């Protein structure tokens, strides 16, 4: 039975996302989108009895206030947002029954930055290019292509959900109040444009997350970069600045150096451009980016491709029934 969800207050930027997002159209400039913290998102779905891929809501900084027309099962994972159901506090990382007419209200994020709301059956929006994920910039997918708006009505597919389930503590990402994060990076693809001293400086420095950051890119503030000789002896078609390179594709997670400003390219990032990417944040560290806030401090820890793949495997394993108590 379909559940109508009235959006009383939309929150700061609440969007429909599905896992893993939109694939197959990257070469035409459409990024994957999808949930920024894929770990919390999948656990929320599993809690209510959905497939991990089902469409749910990503709530950024301040969550929405929603009224449900019919009974359904929901779960909130990720950032703590002091959520209440008809005024009574509800637990995170647990599935619970919502009865017809009840109001879910979320506040500001107190720990972390993004909460994920799964609803039994998943959000019912038409897939665009094979995915329900929202790509705000071009207005693709999700609920009319954009973040939720006050007064809008969404629908969930509904059906049998499973209340009373909980994610084991050890199986959740550790979202703390601290402002300092250690973020894994893999060196490359364009690390040969940076001098050895520049590589060491990047790894040894603190980087502050700027306020002008969103699902397209995370801008960082830190010391100047030092370039290798190659960056100044290259052909003119690469562009004038040492950080310029002949237009090329951008891996999702790559740290894109625009002049002296590094920007971590995330879920909705442009697919290509003319700047170098000396390092890449692997997918297993994305949840940390998703849960950090402007002015938080990053320190980068270099790992190998194989270690990054092992970390991803470990998280994938945790996104399963085994994590549920």
């Amino acid at each position, binding site marked *: 039975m379909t559940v109508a969800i009235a959006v009383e207050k939309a929150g700061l930027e609440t969007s429909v996302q599905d896992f893993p997002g939109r694939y197959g159209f*990257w070469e035409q400039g459409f990024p994957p989108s999808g949930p920024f913290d894929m770990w919390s998102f999948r656990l929320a779905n599993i809690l209510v009895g959905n497939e991990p891929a089902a469409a749910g809501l990503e709530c950024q900084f301040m969550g929405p206030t929603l009224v449900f027309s019919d009974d359904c099962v929901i779960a909130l994972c990720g950032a703590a947002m002091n959520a209440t159901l008809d005024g009574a506090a509800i637990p995170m990382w647990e599935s619970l029954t919502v009865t017809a007419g009840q109001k879910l209200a979320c506040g500001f994020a107190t720990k972390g930055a993004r909460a994920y709301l799964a609803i039994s059956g998943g959000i019912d929006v038409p897939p665009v290019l094979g995915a329900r994920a929202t790509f705000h910039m071009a207005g693709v997918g999700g609920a009319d292509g954009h973040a939720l708006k006050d007064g809008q009505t969404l629908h969930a597919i509904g059906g049998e959900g499973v209340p009373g389930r909980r994610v084991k503590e050890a199986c959740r990402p550790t979202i703390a109040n601290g402002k300092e994060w250690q973020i894994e990076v893999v060196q490359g693809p364009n690390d040969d444009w940076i001098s050895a001293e520049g590589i060491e400086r990047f790894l040894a420095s603190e980087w502050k997350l700027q306020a002008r950051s969103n699902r397209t890119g995370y801008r960082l503030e830190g010391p100047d970069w030092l370039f290798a000789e190659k960056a100044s002896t290259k052909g003119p078609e690469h562009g004038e600045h040492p950080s310029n390179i*002949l237009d090329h594709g951008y891996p999702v997670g790559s740290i894109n150096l625009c002049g002296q400003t590094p920007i971590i390219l995330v879920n909705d990032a442009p697919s290509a451009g003319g700047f170098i990417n000396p390092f890449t944040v692997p997918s*297993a560290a994305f949840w940390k980016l998703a849960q950090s806030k402007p002015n938080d401090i990053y320190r980068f820890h270099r790992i190998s491709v194989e270690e990054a793949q092992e970390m991803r495997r470990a998280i994938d394993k945790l996104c399963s029934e085994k994590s549920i108590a």
Partner: protein
Amino acid sequence: MIYEEPKFLPGGDRFIEMELGDELNFDLNFLVHSLSAKVREAEIPGLIELLPNMASIVLSYDPDGISFGDLKREILSHYHAMGSLEDIELLSPIYYIPVLYCDHVTRACWEDYCAKIGDKEYDPDLMVRLNDLDGYAQLARIHSGTEYWVSALGFYPGLASLIALDPRCRMTAPKYNPPRTWTPKGTIGYGGSVTCVYPANTPGGYQIIGHTPVPVCDIAQRLPAFKDDLALLRPGDRVRFLPVERAEYDYVESRVEEGNYVHNVARYAKFSIREYHHWLETLDMTERF
């Protein structure tokens, strides 16, 4: 140059940047798209997407389906099996795009920039001056006098970088500084030696020389060309601009608005680099349209 052996550079846990060379060169770009077509055809398990660009391809893969090393070996075997570039023929559809050159939309956009950001020479005048042309008519003749090669897409969804295949029609243009905050959808731009059709209302830095009512990207998927794709072009396609008068422009615009415009595309067209090279040799570069 085109590298003796391509480089495979890691991009985290699920991407590889394969660099085939390091210059802006049509043969190199043709090689990139020929290899991409071959690799797509091979349907390598674990390989998810390809992002070909000027001289490189970004590959996305599932490390649980294929390792970095195995994917590199697979791609290299296709690369070495390609044989001589001269022998490659690629299916390369030609899209015909009507353009009203030096039109009302272009002028309004330029006037808006001058009013809001600062004085700037009118773009068609600047193009005529910098490229030694004798006026707007020659600008339109040169710009529409060649097929363009879609060398890459990206930066913005549906935005294609188009390179003139006839060297006699290549122009150059500086980019706006500071850039425009707004460019109308359908504007024809020129920056460096690349031309483009703006797929949506976006900021921009290319000189603007005309406007087409024909969409190259349609999020709402109203027109038949966008039934399975939101963007019209893919790398390795070709584009030909058709200069039209205002009456034809208005007619096409109304068909687009009514939702029944049919894009004009020659899907059978193949591109042979051997024939292309032969033809280049016959050209008298001192001649101009």
